[in-house]
């Protein structure tokens, strides 16, 4: 009899929907159907049964082809690479559990690795801004229960966080928001008319690259100062009108994404958005939240935070001190400048997201990729070690975009004999210990 597993946590984006239901085959091996998930989330679950899935490590041969090897062999090769390299980039972590990260950090501390996560090419600029000016924020349930002014700035949840709008930000009815969507005013600020903008009461089309100026104008308007006729392509009347509406609200929230973090100004865009939020708290209640994209990237920042005090790009290569310096200890910069001797990628696909120059540099170094799937990075690696999918085939803790941790669930068994990230890292850690005790370092 197929059985239904409920309250499953979706392993795709930072929204961490926790109401997924799957029907699972009698032998606990196959997900037959997925309920409640968005199209991308459902696909994540369906990957579990994709034909041709790699279930054993593969090692690159002299002719460039891959040959299946045992986990023991792959672990030994990986540990030797880590011990031999004075400075290893250990990048990724966003699709694995906090428990696995913790073991990875222990290895990094021993071998002198640099632990970095996807924030480095995503919300790293937001984190820099938070280091500079702090951040007034809230949990997503607060938005659902209280928010009557919702701004999406440079983000497009309709595509990137498909259920965000229905679970938290636009449509849900909450305790003080009994009218749901009708009780909220929705604003979208973007340089394109996105699918999210279709849900907005007000769409503000900012000229590309002028977000900083427009945010500055919002602050200026909030303080009742004068503005030029247009700012970033937006007429001043519009700016005054929107700011007046925001002030009339009881609880406002700004959600922002890559349209702010990776356009001209970067961390300064976030800095001024946070300062606008801060200013608005003189008039009403206002919060701001980064639309963290890659599933548990927030968790990687949290674990690095409590173990070393920095949210990403943590350089442990001195082995007695943790360092964090954007531009210096960040993955892309390290690769482009050829500053690392080896690469260990886990639970993320830098091959698909890093600049080409960085990946060309990476491809010339000894590289291990740990990932359930074949991806762009596995194809330039010396070894690909497949593992069970976290949140589908094994549990573990993940953090939502508002930093709320949720323990994910195991839905089905991983293919026979496959290791989880935790098991694999534990064994690599043990092998590193053995090699180092034998004088390997």
């Amino acid at each position, binding site marked *: 009899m197929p059985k239904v597993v409920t309250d499953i946590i979706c392993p795709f984006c930072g929204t961490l929907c926790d109401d997924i239901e799957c029907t699972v085959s009698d032998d606990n091996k196959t997900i037959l159907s997925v309920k409640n998930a968005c199209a991308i989330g459902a696909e994540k679950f369906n990957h579990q049964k994709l034909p041709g899935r790699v279930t054993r490590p593969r090692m690159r041969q002299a002719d460039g082809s891959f040959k299946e090897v045992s986990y023991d062999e792959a672990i030994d090769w990986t540990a030797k690479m880590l011990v031999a390299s004075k400075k290893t980039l250990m990048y990724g972590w966003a699709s694995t559990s906090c428990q696995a990260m913790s073991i990875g950090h222990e290895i990094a501390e021993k071998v002198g690795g640099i632990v970095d996560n996807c924030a480095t090419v995503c919300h790293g600029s937001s984190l820099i801004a938070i280091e500079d000016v702090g951040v007034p924020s809230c949990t997503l349930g607060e938005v659902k229960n209280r928010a009557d002014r919702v701004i999406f700035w440079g983000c497009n949840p309709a595509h990137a966080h498909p259920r965000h709008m229905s679970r938290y930000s636009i449509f849900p009815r909450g305790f003080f928001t009994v009218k749901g969507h009708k009780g909220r005013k929705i604003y979208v600020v973007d340089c394109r008319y996105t699918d999210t903008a279709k849900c907005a009461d007000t769409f503000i089309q900012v000229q590309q690259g002028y977000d900083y100026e427009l945010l500055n104008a919002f602050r200026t308007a909030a303080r009742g100062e004068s503005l030029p006729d247009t700012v970033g392509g937006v007429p001043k009347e519009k700016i005054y009108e929107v700011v007046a509406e925001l002030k009339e609200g009881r609880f406002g929230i700004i959600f922002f994404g890559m349209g702010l973090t990776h356009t001209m100004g970067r961390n300064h865009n976030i800095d001024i958005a946070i300062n606008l939020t801060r200013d608005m708290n003189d008039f009403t209640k206002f919060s701001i939240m980064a639309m963290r994209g890659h599933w548990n990237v927030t968790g990687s920042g949290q674990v690095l935070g409590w*173990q070393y*005090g920095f949210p990403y790009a943590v350089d442990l290569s001195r082995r007695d001190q943790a360092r964090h310096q954007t531009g210096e200890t960040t993955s892309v910069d390290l690769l482009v400048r050829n500053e690392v001797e080896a690469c260990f990628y886990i639970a993320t696909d830098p091959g698909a997201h890093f600049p080409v120059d960085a990946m060309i540099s990476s491809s010339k170094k000894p590289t291990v990729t740990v990932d359930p799937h074949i991806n762009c990075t596995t194809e330039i690696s010396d070894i690909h070690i497949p593992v069970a999918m976290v949140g589908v085939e094994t549990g573990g803790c993940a953090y939502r975009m508002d*930093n*709320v941790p949720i323990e994910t669930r195991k839905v089905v068994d991983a293919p026979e004999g496959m290791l989880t990230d935790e098991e694999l890292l534990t064994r690599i850690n043990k092998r590193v210990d053995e090699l180092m005790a034998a004088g390997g370092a």
Partner: protein
Amino acid sequence: MSEYIIKNGHVFDPVQGLKGDKADISVKDGKIVDKAGSGAKVIDAKGKTVMAGALEVHAHVAGPKVNAGRWYRPEDKHFDSHKKPGITRIEGGKSIPTVFKTGYEYARMGFTFAMEAAMPPLYARHVHEEIHDTPIIDEAALPVFGNNWFVFEYLKNKEIENAAAYISWVMRQTKGYGIKVVNPGGTEAWAWGLNCLTINDPVPYFDITPAEIMNGLMAANEYLGLPHSMHVHQNSLGNPGNYEVTLDTLKLAEGVKPKNNFGREQVMHSTHLQFHSYGGDNWGNFESKAKEVMDYVNKQDNITIDTGNVTLDETTTMTADGPFEHHLHGLNHLKWINVDVELETAAGVVPYIYDPNIKVCAIQWCIGLELALYAKDPMRCFITTDHPNAGPFTRYPRVYSWLMSKKVRDERLNTFKNADKVISATNLAELDREITLYELAAMTRAGPAKALGLSKDYGGLKPGMNADIAIYDINPDKFPSSGPEIEKAFGNAAYLFKDGKICVQDGKIVDFGNKHTFWVDAKVKENKLVVRDIREKFLRYYSVNEANYPVPESYAPHQHIITVDATQA
């Protein structure tokens, strides 16, 4: 397990009334015993001070706001952040140390337990992940209830039994230890940008007052018979003239009787009282009201307090008192973090520099010390820095030096830039009292253990108790006279035994011990109404499903569960 005899030390133990008497302490199987076997290892403690392991009653050491502080203050890692030789991991941070450093530093100072003072239930998994990663010391966490919608609704209708049933449910889901209250009502008001500054200000929408919340939670606490009492951070923290609110709050405990099987005698623990003992009505005429507050505390047996001593450092303030942090940010304009947590609480974080050149900071420093020096019963007054709010916990040795030596503290007081103004706004200059080692043992060991309901096994050195023992290189007959000497001795335990294992030797970590997570499982009668209310709130208002709310066992692999049976209450 190894056996030890700690020979010839000067033992200070309020549990047995030992005031520096030379006595041998025997350890076997993690417990203190009358006599160890002949093969026991001898530890020579001649000329040294022996006390039980210290218990931290209130510190922010694990969880979302602590980590937010670490995240957003890279500059905090500029100080003293490196790996020390030996088995330890990399240590980082000064005012908000990483979890590794937190465990090591407490142990080096002779501590074996720390209470995380504010756990937002929704973030309980985060708190426990950090506790899990903090080495050596035992820890527990207090979930916050003072701004919780369930609690408001039950207490508005005087439904103590339902409130208690809900509290017991939350404590089980979150692996929590007791009832924490932070700015009752005020933090909920803050969700709309407002506050409750007296105990009679109504909470917007919920039609309840802070006084009613605290009365109800005290009643629920005693209904359940929990090991610890209601633990309260009062309204109007940090404001000139707030001592009147403080006295109003303390008076709520009058006539309330403790009911528990743990030997706890208080019904209210009023925390970081330094921040609540202010006179004046602005920063210009700001003054100490420590005497007025302590006069009341001294005659009221069912109250315990902790001090919240200002250490005159650059630090990172953090509290579930969201409106206060916004207010503080308005004063110092440093970076501000805020997190409002659905249905439950909020938190804020702002860096702060307690500058000895600023009069107000120096007065705050005096007030913290005055509270301890005015305390008649050291078993009811505990030393804290409300870490990291008034200063990092790593400054305890320095705080002890100020309390234990009039000379050391007067050197500091008389050299403030505004010494005259500070002295005239406080009473510290007139106080000659020096806290003795015996009183210190009460304020940092026996007292907190009793207030937390742990006195059966912790806070003393009586045979049968847990073998948590700190040995300091202090000869009571030749007590060090300079501040730095006192600090060095208390900051580097000669030995720390945790559960009968040596974890620190000569100030160095030598073993990670057996860390435990303490939590309280209070059993109540089945309460269908509360079960239904919980289900409804999760369906309609929470952003996570009820099934995903609990903290799984794996987060506290070494748990120490204290069971309370309130089914007959």
